[in-house]
C-alpha cells in the first residue's frame, strides 16, 4: 500500500533531518524552520484543495496562532509545547466558528470570503496598540519541558521540536485522508449532489476539513512565531501572506502529504537567493517562477519527483 510507503518515507526523512540538524549551518537550519511553518499551512490548504476549495485567507489562522504564541508569551508562558498546542487549538476553534459561515460557499466565493476575514484580522491587529499595532510583538526563545537552551542549542532544539510537530501533522493528515471521511473529499469535489444522495452532508464534510485546515495553519503560525521570534500584521495576516501559502501549495502539488513541505523548502530557497541577489528582482523572480509552474508543471514539484523516480501512478 502506498500509504505505508508515504509514512515510511516521511519517517526516514525526519530521522535523517534530525541527524543533519546537528551539522548544518545556522542559516540552513533557519530555512528549514521557516519551511516547516509554511509547509504546515500549505498542508492545510492541501486538505481543502482536495475538495476543490482554495482559501485566499489562510493567513487568518496563521496570524491568529502566531499572535496567540506572542500573547501567551507575554503572559509568561514559555513552554514550546504549551504555546504551540494552545495557539493552534485556538486557531482550530476559530475555524470551527467561522466554518458555520464559510461551509455554505464554494469556488471563488469561498476564497474571497476567507480573504475578507483575514483582512479584518489584519485591520484589528494593525489597529490595536496593545498588540504593538503594525510593529507587532516579540516572542522570547521558548523552553522545552523545562529545558531552556540558549544560543545555537536553542535553534537546534527548536528544529527538533518543529520536526516532531510536523511529523505528527503529516501522520495525522495521512490517516485522515485514508479514512472514509477523508475519501469523501474527492467525491465532494467531483459532484456534491451525488455525495448528498449517498447520505453524507457535504457541508459537514467541508466544515471538518476547514477546521483541520485551520488547525494546521495554526501550527504553522505558531512554529513561525517561535522560529522568527517576532510577529507582525504585515508578515502574518496581510493578503500577500495568504497568497504565498497558495503559491507554495501550487508549487508543491496535491499529490502527497509530504509535498507541501518540499514545496515550502523550494519556496524558501528561492526567496532566500532572490533576496540576496537582487532585492528589486524578487517580485519578478517569484512571479516568473509561479507562472512557469502553472504553465509547465501544473501538478507541482511532486509530479516532477514522481516522474524522476519513474513512478507513473501517483497517489490520487
Amino acid at each position, binding site marked *: 500500500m502506498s500509504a505505508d510507503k508515504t509514512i515510511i518515507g516521511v519517517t526516514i526523512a525526519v530521522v535523517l533531518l534530525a541527524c543533519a540538524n546537528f551539522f548544518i*549551518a*545556522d*542559516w*540552513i537550519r*533557519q530555512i528549514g524552520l*521557516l519551511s516547516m511553518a509554511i509547509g504546515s499551512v500549505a498542508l492545510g490548504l492541501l486538505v481543502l484543495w482536495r475538495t476543490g476549495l482554495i482559501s485566499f485567507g489562510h493567513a487568518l489562522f496563521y496570524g491568529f496562532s502566531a499572535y496567540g504564541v506572542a500573547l501567551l508569551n507575554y503572559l509568561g508562558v514559555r513552554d514550546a509545547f504549551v504555546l504551540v498546542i494552545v495557539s493552534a487549538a485556538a486557531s482550530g476553534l476559530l475555524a470551527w466558528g467561522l466554518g458555520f459561515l464559510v461551509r455554505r460557499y464554494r469556488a471563488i466565493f469561498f476564497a474571497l470570503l476567507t480573504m475578507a476575514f483575514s483582512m479584518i484580522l489584519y485591520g484589528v491587529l*494593525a*489597529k490595536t*496598540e496593545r498588540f*504593538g*499595532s*503594525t*510593529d*507587532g510583538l*516579540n516572542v*522570547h*526563545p521558548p523552553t522545552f519541558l523545562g529545558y531552556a537552551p540558549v*544560543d545555537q542549542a536553542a535553534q537546534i532544539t527548536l528544529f527538533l521540536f518543529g520536526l516532531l510537530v510536523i511529523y505528527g501533522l503529516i501522520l495525522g493528515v495521512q490517516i485522515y485522508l485514508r479514512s472514509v471521511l477523508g475519501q469523501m473529499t474527492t467525491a465532494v469535489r467531483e459532484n456534491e449532489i451525488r455525495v448528498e444522495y449517498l447520505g453524507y452532508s457535504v457541508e459537514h464534510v467541508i466544515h471538518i476539513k476547514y477546521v483541520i485546515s485551520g488547525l494546521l495553519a495554526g501550527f504553522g503560525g505558531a512554529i*513561525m512565531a517561535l522560529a*522568527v*521570534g*517576532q*510577529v*507582525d*500584521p*504585515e*508578515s*502574518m495576516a*496581510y493578503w500577500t501572506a495568504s497568497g504565498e501559502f497558495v503559491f507554495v501549495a501550487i508549487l508543491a502539488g496535491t499529490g502527497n502529504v509530504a509535498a507541501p513541505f518540499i514545496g515550502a523548502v523550494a519556496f524558501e530557497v528561492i526567496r*532566500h*537567493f532572490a*533576496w*540576496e*541577489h537582487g*532585492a*528589486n528582482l524578487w*517580485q519578478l523572480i517569484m512571479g516568473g517562477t509561479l507562472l512557469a509552474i502553472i504553465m509547465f508543471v501544473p501538478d507541482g514539484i511532486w509530479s*516532477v519527483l514522481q*516522474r*524522476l*523516480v*519513474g513512478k507513473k501512478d501517483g497517489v490520487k
Partner: protein
Amino acid sequence: MAQASTTLGLMFILTKLTVVSTMYLLFIQEDKNMKHRVLRLVAVGVAAVLTTFGVAVGNAVAKDKMVIAVPTFLTGGGAPAFGVPARNGTELIIQAINKGQVPAPYNTKGIAGAQVEAIIYDESGGGAKQVTEYRNKVQKLGVDMFAGFVSSGTCAAITPVAEELKTLTVYATCGTPRVFEELDKNPKYVFRTMSHATADGVALAHYVASKYPSANGYTGINQNYAWGQDSWRDFDLAMKVLAPNIKGSDKGQWPKIFAGRYGAEISALLKSPEDLVHTSFWGGDLEAFIFQGLARGLFKKKTFLMSVAGTAAYRLGKKLPAGIVLGSRGPYGIYANQLTDTPMVKWFNNAYVNRYGTQPTQPSYQYAQAILGAKFAYEKAAAANSGKWPSTDQVIAALEGATFQGVATEVRMARSNGHQGVTDHAWGVASFDKELGLPVVSEVMHFKGDCIMPPDGMDSVTWLKGGMKGAKCD
C-alpha cells in the same frame, strides 16, 4: 567597494544556474536507466553542497576589510522617501571613508585601517522577514556589524535578535522609544545614534507653544499604524504639558497607510474648528495629500505641522505649501543644507549634490551619522587596543556613553546606559525660494537634546504624562 561581493555574487548565481540547468536536463531527458538517474541526482547534490560550502569560505572576513550590513527600503513605498537617500548617503560616506576624504576628525583612510564594504539590502516585507534576513547576514555572510534601519517596526523586531546573536547593531533612523524602554532595557549590542521619536513631538510642541500661542486648538491626520499612532500620542501629550490652553481634538483622522485618496479626510479637516493640523505623513502619502489639499485650498485655511515633510520638500519644490511647519526629525536635511556651515556639512552637501544631482535629505544625514559613529567607536577601541583590530566588546565599550561628531550635529550617547543617542532638533516654517529654486526654512528654532528627550532611566510616556520633569531647556 562592492566589487568583491559582486564577483562573489555572480559566481554564486552562475554555479546555481549550472545546478539548476543540470536538474533541468535531468528532468527532460527521459533516461530509461535508473542507475544513471540516481548518479545524476548524487552529482547535483554534491554540486549544491560544494557551492554552498564555497560561498561560506569565500565570505570569510579578512582583517584588512570590514563588512557593514546596511538595511534600508529599496522597494515599496518607503524607497523614494527614505531608502534611496539613505542608500546614497551610505555609499557616499563609505567611499569617502575608504579614500580618507571625510573632513576632520574622520580624515583617516578606512575604519581603524580596514577598508569598508557595505552590503546595502532591502528592509521591506515586515518584521518577521527582516529577522530572517538579519540572521542570514550574521550567520551566513558573517558581517561585522549593522548600521541602518528606517522603520520602527523593523527595529522592534530586530532588537532581541541582535542581542541574541551578539552582533553590533547601530540604528540610524527608526524612531520608536520602545526599543530601549520596553524591549531591551539593558542593551549591550544595540545602539541608536539619534534622538527617538518622542523628541520630535516634544520639540514641535515647544515650537507651537512659542510661535502659535493663540491658536484655538489642533487636530491631526496620521497614518493608522505604529509610527502615526506614536507620533500623534507624543505630540498630544507634550502639548497638554507645554500649551494646556490649546486644546487637542479627539476626532483626528486615521487613514490607512498607502491609502492614497484623502478626499473625505480633507473635507473633515476643512470642517474641523481647529487652526492647527498635526501630521506625520511621509513619502507618497504625504505628496498625494499635499496635491489633493492644494487643489482644495486646504493649506490656506489651516496651519500644518508636518513632522517628516523634510523627506518630500525638495521633490515637491514649488508645490511645497508655503507656511507649513516642517520637520526633519532633527537638524538634518533642509536644516543642515541651509543653515549649518561647518566644513563637514559643506563637504557632505557638495559631494552629495555633485554625485546625485539633488539635495541630501534627513535619511542621508542619519545613515552617514550612524556610520561615522561606527568609525568613531572602532577607531577609539583600536587605539585603546594598541592599534590592533578591536573585539566587538571593546567597540561597544568605546561607543557606550561617548560623544562623537555626526555629519550635521553632535551625538551624545547619553541615555539607556549610553546606548541611546541624544541629538538636537530644529523646527521652522517652509517656503519656496524662487531665486534659489529651492525650498527654504525660516522662523527656525533650535532645541537642545536634553530639553526634548526624557532624562536617563525614564520612559517617554511616563515622562510626558508626569509633566516632563527634568527637561533642561535654556
